[in-house]
């Protein structure tokens, strides 16, 4: 059979069309198509270097929040003292002058010129500090809020034991303040202020919601909850969730409040501000905010007086970059007013204490 098939003539076979040659025109067209395809491939931006290409309304701009009218800034930075610790956490002014800073494993003391005075080694990281003044039962004593309780130190740094009265496993001490025979601490975990005597005896718990006494309680959305005693014997508490500063008697009676939630410079911005505050010797308030970091001074009645430090000063990277992450925004971990009413700011990003003084003030020479 195969042998016979050789005789088959072409014309009588069913023959599908063959593959022809390439004409010049077609070759040219194909080459052109290939070039177009190649150009398209080369123009693919694989690395996202041309950006997302989203329109402007997709851009997040917080320019307005970050810029502060220079007219409003009444302070200038006059010094900066580095804290030789791997992390910083809390700041407290020493009534006679100077300050204390806590960080991982240590509490460091500095005098008013920024020279190191005392170094107390501790286990863990003290989350808040207070130093007793002359009016206190034990002048010069250092109180430190530790994860497990309140630890006392002699002015020289020797530990005098710890108390835990009124604390439970939810407790997170975020602030300490001292007045005459009292020691008070803000407990962010339980959202109350604890009031002890100087021996650690719990005297009262301030701020438990109680409609009959017109006490609404504190809203503490994050681990920032600050308290301060002023010489008038009135306790001031930052209610960060409500973005207010509230006043209480040591017995826990509500006296009044001020503060307004706002993105504008006059108000407290964000979910939970002011994160920290301190009281100047004349009763005015120094407030610090987190998120968009800024330090401002308010009058006793809560009127904005001046800006101490702008976001630009406190977190330059926040301004420089459009893309940022929240772990970089907690720039300020404490404010304090020292004996000379200079404003001390604990800068977490630079791990230093920054000193601000009024513009054109008398104490320019430091």
């Amino acid at each position, binding site marked *: 059979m195969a042998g016979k098939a050789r005789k088959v003539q072409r014309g009588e076979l069913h023959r599908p069309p063959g593959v022809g040659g390439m004409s010049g025109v077609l070759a040219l067209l194909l080459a052109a198509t290939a070039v177009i395809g190649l150009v398209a491939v080369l123009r693919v*931006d*694989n*690395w*996202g270097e041309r*950006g*997302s*290409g*989203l329109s402007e*309304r*997709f*851009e*997040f*701009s*917080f320019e*307005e*929040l970050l810029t502060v009218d220079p007219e409003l800034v009444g302070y200038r930075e006059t010094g900066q003292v580095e804290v030789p610790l791997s992390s910083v956490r809390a700041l407290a002014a020493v009534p006679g002058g100077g300050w204390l800073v806590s960080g991982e494993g240590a509490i460091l003391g500095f005098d008013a010129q920024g020279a190191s005075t005392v170094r107390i080694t501790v286990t863990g990281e003290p989350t808040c500090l207070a130093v007793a003044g002359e009016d206190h039962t034990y002048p010069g004593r250092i109180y430190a809020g530790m994860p497990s309780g309140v630890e006392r130190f002699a002015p020289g740094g020797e530990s005098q034991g710890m108390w835990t009265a009124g604390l439970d496993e939810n407790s997170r001490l975020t602030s300490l303040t001292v007045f005459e025979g009292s020691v008070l601490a803000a407990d962010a975990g339980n959202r109350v202020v604890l009031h002890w005597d100087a021996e650690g005896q719990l005297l009262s718990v301030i701020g438990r*919601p109680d409609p009959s006494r017109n006490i*609404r*309680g*504190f*809203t503490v*959305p*994050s681990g920032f909850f600050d308290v301060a005693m002023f010489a008038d014997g009135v306790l001031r508490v930052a*209610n960060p*969730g*409500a973005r207010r500063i509230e006043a209480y008697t040591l017995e826990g009676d509500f006296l009044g409040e001020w503060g307004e*939630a706002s*993105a504008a410079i006059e108000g407290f*911005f*964000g*979910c*939970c501000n002011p994160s920290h505050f301190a009281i100047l010797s004349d009763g005015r308030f120094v407030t610090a905010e987190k*998120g*968009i970091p800024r330090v401002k001074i308010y009058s006793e009645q809560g009127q904005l007086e001046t800006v101490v430090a702008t976001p630009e000063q406190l977190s330059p990277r926040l301004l420089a970059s459009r*893309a*940022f*992450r*929240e772990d970089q*925004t907690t720039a300020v971990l404490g404010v304090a007013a020292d004996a000379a009413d200079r404003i001390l700011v604990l800068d977490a990003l630079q791990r230093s204490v920054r000193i601000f003084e009024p513009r054109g003030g008398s104490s320019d020479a430091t």
Partner: protein
Amino acid sequence: MPEAGRTDRRGFLADALRTSGGFALVGAGGFLVGRRGQEELQVWQLDPDKCTACGNCATYCVLDVSAVKCVNCFDMCGFCDICTGYFETNYWSLDTAAENQLCPTGAVIRRFVEEQSGQRFYEYTIDGPLCIGCGKCVKGCALMNGSMYLQVEHDRCVNCNECAIATACPAEAFYRIPANQVEIVKQSAIGVLERRGRQQLREADEDPQLREEGESLLARAAVQRQWRARQAGWDARQQGEEAPRGS
């Protein structure tokens, strides 16, 4: 048919090639799969701790609407009244009018929850179909709690072998993860999930649903911890290996 001698020679050569090739392939394949144990399907996911919310997720995905979308981890959320992930920074008033909303597609939904000591709390949910993964709210939320973050949604992702967003990600935040891991949560969210899980278990008592939820939360957190630890270990090992070669 070619003559017998040629067939033999060629056939022998081809057989030899085939056999050795086959053995080599199967051996190498077995070694590769065996080296890291039997791993199942892998999928793409982004590490929200590395993410800079640059917006590339919205446009570089091969899908018309990106597979990357925003997630709100409610247990990290402050339920703020002034939500920086919801309101424009220059909002006129604190209501849901479109001009006040940060999200260009209106995908963040604000719902009043309750009022406590003068503070009003709101719940913010993401309307999945509207979200295009631009990350604008993520940037806004980062000013506060950072509970909003981007994730690849695997019911939409087509799981390209080479993810176009991963290549275009300026923060190199994309990883291949085991399919059953599904997500990469923020480091800070791991503890939050664990706490919620433990709380659910404590409160569960007779409620099987609460118990189940609590257990799945703890399991999720455990997977995340494991992944983070392994990642840290690899980074360390890889850098240790490469360093001598580099210098």
